[in-house]
């Protein structure tokens, strides 16, 4: 029993040291947050633009997104069978429209270019999610939605993918232009899963 108590004491001391020593590092953590809000708290300008462009889509869910000190409003809903995400700044001005899509729905030349990037950069890869991103002047975006024709606005592709090569195995978010050229990419960190597996 005495040995047991000594063992437990040591375990507690080690746990305590591990627990408290790195607390000072917390301040360096980048905070990203998205939370649901009621339509009543959304600027009228945003709701008006959404209504004029999309009519009255069913089940619109509104969120506030906070990323690195920048906040925006985001409306998520299904329109013409696809999941849409429309982002507005705090004044209610449209910033971009993102539409979830599939690999097969991308233009063939864009697929070839993006596919070439994947093959050249990674030994193994898997696409997790694709969104077409439209940006431009509010009126142009509105007309594009109404006419289902986006030639007057900028089209980009935001692709979430897993890539594996000799040096890393990571989850990435890549932004590609309409020709399939990589514009930027950032690593996606998966939040801790310790409460699911232990």
């Amino acid at each position, binding site marked *: 029993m005495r040995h047991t108590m000594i063992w437990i004491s040591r375990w507690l001391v080690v746990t305590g040291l591990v627990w408290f020593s790195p607390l000072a590092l917390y301040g360096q953590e980048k905070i990203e947050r998205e939370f649901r809000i009621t339509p009543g708290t959304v600027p009228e300008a945003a709701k008006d633009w959404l209504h004029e462009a999309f009519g009255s889509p069913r089940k619109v869910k509104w969120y506030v997104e906070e990323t690195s000190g920048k906040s925006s409003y985001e409306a998520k809903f299904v329109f013409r069978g696809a999941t849409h995400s429309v982002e507005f700044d705090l004044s209610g001005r449209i910033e971009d429209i993102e539409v979830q899509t599939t690999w097969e729905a991308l233009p063939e030349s864009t697929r070839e270019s993006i596919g070439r990037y994947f093959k050249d950069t990674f030994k193994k890869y898997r696409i997790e999610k694709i969104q077409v991103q439209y940006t431009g002047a509010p009126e142009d975006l509105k007309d594009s939605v109404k006419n289902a024709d986006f030639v007057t606005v900028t089209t980009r592709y935001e692709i979430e993918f897993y890539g594996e090569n000799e040096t890393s195995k990571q989850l990435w978010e890549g932004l590609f232009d309409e020709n399939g050229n990589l514009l930027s990419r950032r690593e996606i960190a998966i939040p801790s899963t*310790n409460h699911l597996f232990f």
Partner: protein
Amino acid sequence: MRYILVVIFGMIVGHQGMAQGRLTNLGFFPELQVRVKASEKLRLTGKIESQHGMASLPEGNEASWAYRHVLTDFQGFAGTSINPFVSLTGGYQFRLDGRNNDSHRTIQQISFLQRKSTFRLGHRIRTDQTFAAAEAIEYRLRYQLSAEIALQGQTVDPGEYYLVLADELIYSYQDRDSGLENRFVAALGHLSRNRQKFQVGIDHRTDRFFDAGLRQRIWFKFGWYLTL
């Protein structure tokens, strides 16, 4: 979301059926967990969990209310990620048993993570071997399916609440005897801004399926999880 609610309802109804067992134990189950990234590839996890019985309710008899320290487990794990979704882990546990049947356990597990739009699914396959004095080694094979569901957005962000649902099936083998146990957990969690998670919920365990008397243990569980 509708699908998730149907699954939750199914699990609750299923467990209500099991609630007609012969012996029911009630108690508290605090849990403390610390996870450290020791290197680029190595993650260490330390955990203490303790079961404290408050009542025993044999079917058809008077309930007996009395405090009893059931057990306290001290666990240490070392794990590595094969990729962002798959991890391999080995662990050791020392159990301080309330009836002086202390034991040692070796643990091996592989876990898989699936990301969905508003929830995450975890699959855990675990084997363990328990060594106790004057007892044959007990071997167990376990599978756990767990879900983390964001309650305030599409993903769980700092400062938000989430729901955890988990069900685990455990097959055990010891000295030519087999056993089966089911563990269901439903908990409400909160992710704080400094990466701590707090969870409160119910841990419902049913075992002795192959014996004359089915036993169910219902624990009021509260956990504190910290990633450093």
